[in-house]
């Protein structure tokens, strides 16, 4: 449920923030722009990228008609996953956002995701946006869920209900970078539990990085088990499969 105050705030809160604390540089090339996000040039280039037909992995144009290595031979619970840009273009900003408390990136990332959502999920009427929860221990260290900071802004922008309570993380997992595809799946098994309120809903699941898709897949599975109609995944960046 989107609270009443949130609805009242939404039209002018972000505008006020932009007025007082303007963000005016392209996230990718630093050119002067109005508002958070990326410049027109970078947006044009971004739209020319090709992805795997199923998941968010970026692929070469000629490989774009067949599933990528991550999807091959595995069941994908989400309907479609898409990412805004390849990881290598944003890794520094994302690192600062997650680990150096530079939370002001949330508006830029939300703007980037809104553009990506409008590009790939045009015409899909989502019932709710759900941020991917982070592990409880990490939450204790970091004090904020980077995905939830972004989805709060994104929900206001896309006028979709923001419902972080639909998905909970119940199992502790170590950081997943440097861990192989197979092991990730094992580690994540049963990590998420979805709320019954997800029943019958078309959901947009948002995370920061899509590497092999193991996390999003597991979360989508939990949501579907709780009766969700379908789950679409949107991430800020994802890996690339080249050549």
């Amino acid at each position, binding site marked *: 449920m989107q609270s009443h105050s949130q609805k009242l705030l939404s039209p002018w809160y972000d505008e006020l*923030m*932009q*007025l*007082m*604390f*303007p*963000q*005016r540089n392209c996230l990718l090339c630093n050119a*002067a*722009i*109005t*508002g958070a996000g990326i410049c027109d040039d970078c947006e044009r280039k971004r739209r020319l990228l090709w992805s795997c037909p199923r998941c968010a992995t970026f692929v070469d144009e000629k490989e774009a008609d067949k599933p990528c290595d991550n999807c091959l031979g595995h069941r994908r619970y989400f309907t479609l996953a898409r990412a805004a840009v390849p990881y290598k273009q944003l890794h520094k900003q994302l690192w600062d956002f997650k680990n150096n*408390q*530079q*939370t*002001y990136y*949330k*508006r830029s990332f939300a703007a980037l995701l809104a553009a990506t959502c409008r590009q790939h999920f045009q015409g899909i009427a989502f019932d709710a946006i759900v941020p991917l929860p982070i592990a409880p221990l990490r939450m204790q260290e*970091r*004090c*904020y869920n980077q995905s939830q*900071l972004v989805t709060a802004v994104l929900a206001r922008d896309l006028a979709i209900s923001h419902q972080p309570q639909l998905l909970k993380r119940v199992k502790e997992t170590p950081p997943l970078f440097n861990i192989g595809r197979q092991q990730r799946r094992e580690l994540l098994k049963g990590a998420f539990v979805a709320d019954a309120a997800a029943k019958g809903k078309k959901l947009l699941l948002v995370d920061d990085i899509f590497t092999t898709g193991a996390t999003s897949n597991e979360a989508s599975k939990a949501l579907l088990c709780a009766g969700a109609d379908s789950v679409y995944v949107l991430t800020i960046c994802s890996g690339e499969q080249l050549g």
Partner: protein
Amino acid sequence: MLHMKKSKIISVLISETAAFLRGRCLFIIAVFFTTGIAAAVLLSLPSWVSLILIVGMAVLLFTGRRRYLGIALLALAIGCFFGSAEISGQREFPVTDGSRVEVSGKVQGYSVQMDDGRYRLRLAPQEVDGKAYYGGDIIVYANDGQQFSGGEQIKVSGQVFSYNSPGNEDAFDYNEYLRNQGIVGVVSAYYGGEITKVKDGSYFSAAAAYFRNRFIAAADLLPGDQRGLINGIFLGDKSGLDYQEKNALSASGIFHAFAVSGLNICYLLLAVSLLISYNYRRRWLRLIITIVLLVFYMMITGFTASVVRAALMGILLVLAQAFDEKTDIYTSLAVALMLCLFYHPLWLFDSGFQLSFVSVFGLVALMPVWQRILPKKGWFGKYLADGMAVTFAASFAAMPLIGYYFYIVSFAGWLISVPILPLIGFALILSLIASLIAVVSVGAAVIPLYAAGLIMDLVNRACQVVASVPLSYATIGKPLLIVIIIIYLLLLLIPLINKYRGRWWALGGFIIVIALLLTPWSNIVNGIFNDKLLEVTYLDVGQGDCALVVTPDGKTVLIDGGGSISDPDAVGEYILLPYLKSHGIDRIDLMISSHPHDDHIDGLISVLENMPVGCYIYGENFSDNSTEKRLIDLAKADGTKLIAADAGDKYNVGESVSINVYLPQQGQVTTEADANNGSLLCKLSYKRMDFLFTGDNDEIDPSVLPALALDAEIVKLPHHGSSNAFDQAFYQTLTAEAVVISVGADNNYGHPAQEVVEYWQMAGVPLYRTDLDGAITVYSNGRDWQISTYRSNND
């Protein structure tokens, strides 16, 4: 950008400006708002004009298609309204000078002790003579022991008075200064006045006052010099600094650090972050603590412009963190600017306020340029380059304004700032700790405070040494306003020059900035229209004598220096030295004192202490006089050539000007009590033009003088026109074409005497008086002369 086509330069300028302004809505609004205030004040727009403007712009905003233009113009109109409301009659104090008045209101800031030991405070009156009052603040002068602090409600009965407007060109205008601070009247409770406290302030302001007083109590235990320096950096109370300290600090460019501001707020924020290490969960706690501390600090320092600016920017910084945002420094600057000007529109014309904003703007805009210019390699790049880039950037931004207000350009300042700013920071942190300890125990607070005092002493000494090194700074005289504007436009272009032409071109830009500042434009402009002339100026030094001569070949002669019995330093430091500096004079070639009385020599002492003097001439008859000894010793210490003169001596100044001494007679003995009549009498000649200087001689016997002595076109009448010196026999021997009386307005001696004034009126000789005419300047080419007075030029 050179070698580019003109059209290309323009298109680059437009696109770069557009890129800079993009997304910075509040910055644009602030620019229009500020322009509105400036326009309304400078053009003295009446309030109704700006009200019409506001309505017109609002209509345009809501009906027109160009919404953004509408918002900008509305900001302009609102600025106009604020400016015109501030200068309109409604803000004026409704009581005339000299009459008695009863005022009750709220104390603003704190009582400040003045040089004479009494106190001054700022009051926001709520009632004047029983009637409600909504105008500007007033200054109240209080007797010893009557100290009040911010927020307290007091009742004052006293006398309204105002300051004399200045009588010399480019002199500091105290009335205008008060006006810019939002002060519209002055009430003195000195004689027969009374101040009573009606109500205490709020707990918060009482706490701030307590905090401040405890700190001052601790600082009072320090040696004198250190106390002034510590109060200067921590409380922004510069009244404890003496002229030489101030002079050395500004000559070495350190003085702006004493306008407590950015540096202090930075260290305060640093202290908070050490106290509560940054953690996302504690961001609201941090926000609240920071805001409380900064407001508290603003109260302690009495809401001075630079502190308010820096504190507002600091609050925006933590506010942004709490809301997961990042500040854009130009927008923060604009927000701080608008908030300050909403409250005090006339701060816009305050030099401290301007310096504070311009320095920060320059710091941000020019630092990247200096970072590119300075080498990045080795230990220099590792430890020094960034610090230097910061101080160089801020120094260059402030330099034209400092030149405009203080008439100097500092070269050593940028270099010495690099080691000194961290030292000041260290002293600040120690003071901050001391201020906390002082709440518990004043005695214990002295320990860290003494360490801070020692550091500041070191800083002060370093500055004095630097300021005494030749070429560490240049006295440039008052620059033309248009030159300052051109320099700022150039400084704005330098980041673009750096971007399109590289760092060496940018460095060239900085060199041009210095060259433009050092070029004596006003002399060049005058030189085009005038031949080389002799200039003799009888300065308005109040009750006293002071004449400055600038010869056609640029030599300077000072004949007496004015002074006052009550405040020996005042004339020298507030009138004479600023006048000399504003005219680009940093050296006196020949100094003459007529006789050792305060109203003739106090200013000379200040000059000897602060400027090189080539040669000092005094009357032979005063060689053993104890007051004269002081000047002789000072001159000796500076390596000034000393001459004890008597009748018959002749001195050449430069190529064409000479000075003949006619009194004292050889072997004349003068007692201490009769010093006036031992005055040195001399004539300054340039070709066929002669000026007679008579000192305070009451009894001039024309028969002992050669006939030539009295043949002068311009005569300064003896002894301020006193009746004692009214001597028709002497007057009749003069062939003067104009006479000058150097005298203070409303003096206690009744100078000038009625009969003196009447004599010259009857004789049909024009009489000029410094009390009525202000400074009197005679220009001569050696044959013809022309006289111009400050008041006739400025009224």
